């Protein structure tokens, strides 16, 4: 049992237990914190994979940005906490997840599986080997070569540029979607949508009246909107 094996088993236990807590707890804030624990475990795993840059990137991006965003989201939606964690399809979801886990372990695990003359499992991969038959060490310059690859026109320059455009779009989109809207604006939008629905219903009624009796099933009426709740909620925000 080498030291790296022990470290891997410890980190794996931390990651899996924290993830199980995240998906099964009722307290969302604790779930966010255990998500942070899981991310730290994954960062340690990246160090074990000789990818130290990605360990630091994991801490900066996932723990430093995404987890903080999630905690903000949990705080801003305070009214939704303390509810039953499982929804009506949770049992089916667990069954599906278990089946998929079984299939993945069968294909990726140490078993020798042959399906339609294709081999799966640890034996089928072509592992890198150097002159002595061992796995090669990761070069010290692996980040420099990643940097060169991201700006090299023959490698990943195009996805790199597209990623920066996408980030710009995400910033603009997130600001626009989550903008504070005045009560009058929200109510005007609702009136427009209700008017459109009434038009649609009227045209469907006209089509039904004009159509021959072929047994067209009735279109159920659209439910009314909770105007009062929204006005109260949006008015509360608009006052600040």
């Amino acid at each position, binding site marked *: 049992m080498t030291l790296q*094996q022990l470290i891997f088993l410890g980190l794996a236990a931390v990651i899996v237990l924290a993830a199980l807590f995240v998906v099964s707890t009722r307290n969302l804030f604790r779930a966010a914190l255990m998500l942070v624990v899981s991310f730290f475990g994954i960062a340690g795993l990246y160090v074990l994979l000789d990818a130290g840059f990605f360990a630091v990137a994991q801490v900066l991006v*996932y723990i430093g940005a995404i987890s903080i965003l999630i905690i903000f989201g949990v705080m801003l939606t305070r009214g939704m906490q303390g509810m039953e964690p499982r929804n009506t399809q*949770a049992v089916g979801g667990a069954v599906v997840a278990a089946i998929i886990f079984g299939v993945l372990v069968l294909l990726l695990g140490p078993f020798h599986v042959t399906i339609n003359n294709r081999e799966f499992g640890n034996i089928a*991969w072509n592992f890198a080997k150097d002159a002595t038959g061992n796995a090669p060490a990761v070069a010290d310059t692996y980040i420099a070569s990643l940097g060169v690859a991201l700006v090299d026109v023959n490698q990943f320059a195009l996805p790199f540029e597209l990623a920066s455009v996408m980030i710009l779009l995400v910033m603009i989109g997130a600001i626009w979607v989550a903008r504070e*809207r005045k009560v009058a604006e929200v109510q005007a939008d609702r009136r427009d949508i209700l008017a459109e629905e009434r038009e649609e219903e009227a045209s469907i009624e006209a089509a039904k009246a004009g159509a021959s009796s072929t047994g067209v099933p009735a279109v159920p009426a659209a439910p009314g909107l909770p105007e009062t709740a*929204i006005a109260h909620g949006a008015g509360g925000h608009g006052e600040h």
Partner: protein
Amino acid sequence: MNLFANAIHGIPLWWFLVLASALFCIGLYGVLGRKNAIAMLMGVELMLNAVNINLLAFWRYIAPNSATGTAFAAFIFVIAAAEAAVGLGLIISVYRSMQSIDPETLDQLKL
């Protein structure tokens, strides 16, 4: 069947792959079985991390001198962060409008 074939420092590749599969399936249950949209987002983040572990494990064991594996992992970092930002913006906007982020009740495309 040698369980420790092609091990680096004693850790064979399939340990990383099985761990990534477990994390992916836990995240999948989080997405499918939770009643709060932010909890679903946490499940999605777990799935993305599982994929990243998978990628970096394959990069390390199969082609450690190629930049493709590391570039792919870097792009997944970027896309996960962007998607979390937009998702949370949407959730906050929906909460302001509907006072609820239970995905089972949000089944109409209206404000």
